[in-house]
C-alpha cells in the first residue's frame, strides 16, 4: 500500500517540514536552496510527514536529514542506499529519500549505488554533485574534472571523472534525472517526478560549493552560457536548445548524436525525446558543454519489477499457501524420536 492510500495527509506548509536544528552549512552554500526547495515541495506529495524518512551518509550534503522535520537517519559514509534498502524491506509503506554527495554516493558508496539501482528498490535518491569533497575541506571527488588542483592534488588530479547519469544508466537504473540547485521550480518538478516513480528514482542535483569549488557549474549558472547550453528534456518534445534566434537541434547521425542548426532540420528528422527509451538516455547522458548541450530533466523513466514488492509477494504467497509460521510445529516436524 502506498502511504497516501494509507491515511489522509493533512494540509502542510513548508514550515511543517523545517526542523528545530540550526543549519550548519557555509553561508552561500547551494545546499540551502535545495533544502528550501525540498521543504517547499514536500506538502505537494500528500504524504503524512510521519511516513517520510530521510536517510543520508556523511558529507555536507548528508547533514540534510537534520533539517527536515520528518524521520531521519544520518548514517555512515557511503552506506545510505544499503540502510535505506533494509528500511524499505522492513517498512515498505514508508516514503524514503536518500540524500548523498558525489563522494558519499560515487566514491565510497559506489557499490551500494550500483546495487540499489539494479534492484530498483522504491527510494528517491538525491545526489548533490558539487564535484568536490566539501566536509573534509576540499579534496577532488570522482566527478572532479581531470587535472583538478585541490589540497590532495597540488599539481592536478589524475583520475578521469565518472558521469553520475551514465553510471546510473549503466547500472540499470529505471529513473534518471538531472536538475540544478539554482533552478528551484525545475528542482520541484524533478523531485515530484522521482518521488512518484515506482522503483529507484535517481536525481543528480548540480550543486555549488562556494567555499571549495565555487562556480564549478558556472557553464549552466551564467545566464548567457545557460541560454546557449541548457537542453531541457521533455517527453515527446524534440531535442532543441540554444537562443531563440539561433536554435540548435540534437539529431542522430548514424549512432552518434550531432548538433545542427534547427532550421536546417525537417520536422520529421528531429530527435523526439522518449523517456522510455533507455538507449537514447545513455547517449544523452554523455553530452556536455562546450561541444554539446547540457541535458537537464528526466533522461529515463521506465517500468521494472521492484525489489521489495517481490519479497513481499513471496512472503504473502508462502503465508496464504501454508499459513503463518508456527515454531512449535516446525520444531517437531521431520525426523524426531521419543525417549521415554
Amino acid at each position: 500500500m502506498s502511504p497516501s492510500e494509507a491515511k489522509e495527509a493533512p494540509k502542510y506548509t513548508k514550515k511543517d517540514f523545517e526542523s528545530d536544528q540550526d543549519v550548519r552549512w557555509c553561508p552561500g552554500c547551494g545546499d540551502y536552496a535545495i533544502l528550501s526547495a525540498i521543504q517547499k515541495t514536500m506538502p505537494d506529495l500528500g504524504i503524512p510527514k510521519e511516513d517520510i524518512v530521510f536517510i543520508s551518509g556523511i558529507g555536507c550534503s548528508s547533514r540534510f536529514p537534520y533539517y527536515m522535520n520528518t524521520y531521519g537517519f544520518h548514517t555512515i559514509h557511503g552506506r545510505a542506499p544499503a540502510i535505506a534498502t533494509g528500511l524499505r524491506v522492513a517498512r515498505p509503506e514508508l516514503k524514503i529519500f536518500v540524500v548523498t554527495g558525489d563522494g558519499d554516493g560515487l566514491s565510497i558508496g559506489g557499490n551500494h549505488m550500483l546495487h540499489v539501482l539494479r534492484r530498483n528498490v522504491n527510494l528517491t535518491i538525491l545526489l548533490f554533485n558539487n564535484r568536490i569533497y566539501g566536509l573534509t575541506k576540499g579534496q577532488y571527488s570522482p566527478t572532479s574534472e581531470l587535472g583538478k588542483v585541490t589540497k590532495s592534488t597540488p599539481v592536478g588530479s589524475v583520475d578521469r571523472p565518472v558521469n553520475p547519469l551514465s553510471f546510473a544508466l549503466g547500472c540499470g537504473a529505471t529513473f534518471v534525472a538531472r536538475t540544478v540547485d539554482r533552478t528551484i521550480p525545475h528542482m520541484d518538478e524533478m523531485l515530484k517526478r522521482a518521488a512518484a516513480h515506482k522503483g529507484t528514482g535517481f536525481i543528480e542535483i548540480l550543486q555549488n560549493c562556494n567555499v571549495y569549488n565555487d562556480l564549478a557549474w558556472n557553464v549552466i549558472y551564467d545566464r548567457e552560457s545557460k541560454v546557449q547550453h541548457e537542453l531541457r528534456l521533455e517527453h515527446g518534445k524534440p531535442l532543441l536548445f540554444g537562443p531563440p534566434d539561433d536554435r540548435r537541434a540534437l539529431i542522430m547521425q548514424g549512432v552518434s548524436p550531432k548538433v545542427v542548426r534547427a532550421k536546417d532540420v525537417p520536422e520529421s528528422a528531429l530527435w523526439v525525446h522518449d523517456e522510455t527509451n533507455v538507449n537514447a538516455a545513455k547517449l544523452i547522458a554523455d553530452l556536455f558543454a562546450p561541444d554539446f548541450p547540457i541535458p537537464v530533466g528526466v533522461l529515463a523513466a521506465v517500468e521494472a519489477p521492484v525489489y521489495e514488492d517481490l519479497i513481499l509477494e513471496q512472503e504473502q504467497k508462502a503465508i496464504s499457501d501454508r499459513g503463518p509460521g508456527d515454531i512449535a510445529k516446525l520444531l517437531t516436524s521431520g525426523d524426531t524420536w521419543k525417549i521415554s
Partner: protein
Amino acid sequence: MAQIATPATGAEKSRKALDRAVIRFAGDSGDGMQLTGEQFTTESAWAGNDLATLPNFPAEIRAPAGTLFGVSSFQLQFGSQRVYTPGDRLDCLVAMNPAALKVHLSDLKTGGLLIVNTQAFDKRNLDKAGYAANPLDDATLAERYRLHKVDMTGLTLEAIKDLPLNTKEKDRTKNFFALGLVSWIYTRPLEPTLDWIKKRFIKNKDIAEANTRVLKAGHAFGETAEIFVEHYAIEAAEMAPGLYRAMTGNRALAWGLLAAAQRSKLPVVYGAYPITPASDILHELAMHKRFRVRTIQAEDEIAAVTAAIGASFGGAIGVTASSGPGIALKGEGIGLAVTAELPLVVLNIQRAGPSTGMPTKTEQADLMQALYGRNSEAPVIVLAPATPGDCFFIAYEAVRLAAKYMVPVIVLSDGFLANGSEPWLIPDPNTLPPIEIQFRTEREGFFPYLRDPATLARPWVRPGTPGLEHRIGGIEKQDVTGNISYDPENHDHMVRTRAEKVRRVAQEIPPTSINGPATGDLLVVGWGGTYGAITAAVEQAQTAGKSVASVHLRHLNPLPPDLGHILREYRKVLVPEINSGQLVRVLRAEYLVDAVGFNRVRGLPLASEEIHEAINQLLGGKA
C-alpha cells in the same frame, strides 16, 4: 516414527556390549561420506544413543577424485552414556580409497577396526595418494589393526547388476554398502535409512531400489561373511525423556530467530552475504518466509549489516551473519548501531584465520574482535552457544537482549557447532522468556535519548508514528535530546552510559552453574564449542579422583557477576581455547587471577584427551 528403535536382526553371531564407540567414514568428496555419516547418525539416534558428530570436508567444491586434499570424512561418537564430543581416537575407520586411508589412518586406535574398499586401491589411486606400494599388501597393517578388506564396489555392482542404471550410477551407491555393513557391526536399525531412501528417491524408483538392495547387501554381508567374528551392541543412553531431533548449530540459530520473530510479532530482516560456514543460516531462513523473515542477499558484508541496521531503525529485528573476513568488514557498521542505540544481532560463525585462512575449519579466535574490533569505545553484548542445540536458545536470547537494551549483540558460534549435530530434546516454545517490544507512541515528554532507568535503553520509535518525528545519527549526541553535541562533558557521559548499559545486562545472567566441587584445586573455564571436550575431560579427571570443576561461559560480555568470586575458590584456573589465549587474557585483566591457557589452533575441535592431559599436568599428576 517416534518410537524406541528395535535392534536389527542377526543376533546369532556373538554380540559384545559397548558403552561407546567412535567411528569415521572417509572417502572421496564424490563418495557420499557426509550422507553416509548423517544416516548412521539418524540410525544411532533412533537406537536411543547419545551422540556427537564431526563432518570434515575440503574447501574445494569437488576436488579431483583420489587426491589427498579431496578426502571428505564424517566422524561420530555414540554411546549409552552422555556423549560430549565426536571423540578423539577412532574405534573404527572405513576408508573408501587410498587417499582416505593415508589421511586418516593415524587417528585409528591400535587394534581398531579398519574396513577398506579393496577395488579402489588401484595403481591410479595409489599414485594420487602418494603410495609407492599398496599398503594393503603390507603385513604390518593387518598386525596393528583388525583389517577387513572388502570389495565393496564389486559386491555393490553384483547386488544390482540387473537394474537399468549405468555403471556410474551403480558405483555411486557403494556408500550404502558401507553403511549397511557398519550398521550391522554396531547393530543399528536400518528403518530410518530405508525410510529416507523411499522419501528421497520417490521420483526415481530404480535408484531407490538400488540403494535399498545395496544397503541390505552390506548388512547381510556382515551377518554372513566369515570374516566378521563379532559385532557390537550399544544400549540406549540414559537421556531425559521427551521428543528428540538431530540438530545442527546453524539450523538451531535460524530456528531461534524464527522463534523470536513469532514471539515478538516482528518481522526479521536478515542481511547476509554468502560465506562459509555461515551461508547455511541464510539458506535455512530463506525457506521460512511464513515467519515473516525477509532475507536480503546483500552485495557485501557492509551492505548486509547496514541493511539490518536500517531495518532495526524501522522497527523490525535486524540480523546479520558472517564468518572470518566478513565479520572484520562489519566493524564500522556495528559502531553505528552502538551509537544510534539500535537493536542488532550479529551472528559470527567463527572459522580458521587470519584473512581467508581455512574457510571450512573451525576456530575460536574472534572473541577479542567481538569485544574490541571497532573504532573507539563501542561496547556490545557478546554471547556464545555451548552446543549445536544451544544455538537455538542463544539466538533467541540475542534478539531479546538487543531489543530490551537497544544495543548490538554479537553471537560467537563456530564451524564445529555450525555443522556438528546432537540429539536435541525439543523445547516447548512457550517456556521461552517473553520478548516484550514496546514501541514508543506517546508524544508527551518524548526525547530520542530519554532512557529507561532500569536498562538505560532509549525508546524504540517506529517511523510512521505521528508526532515523534526525530533524527538520529553517528555523530556524538547530547543525552536525552539526541541533538548533535561536541560538549566535552557530555561525550564523557555518553561513553560511560553506553558502557554502563551493557554492564546492566549482567542482571539478566543466571547464577553460573559449576560442574564439580564449589572449591578445589583446579577450575577449567571454557566458552563456545569446546563445551563437550572440556566437560568430558573434567569428568574423566573427576572420576580419577581429581579435585577439578568446570564452568562454561555463555555470556562473554558482560561476564557473569558471580564469576570473580567463583574463580577465587580454586587454586588454579585453566582456560582451554582454540586460539592463542583470548578469554584467558580477559579473565586475567578483569580478575587478576593467574589463569593459564591451553591453546591449540589447528582448525579442529580440541580433543578431550589433550585437555585431560593439560589438567593432569597442571595438577602435577599423571594421566
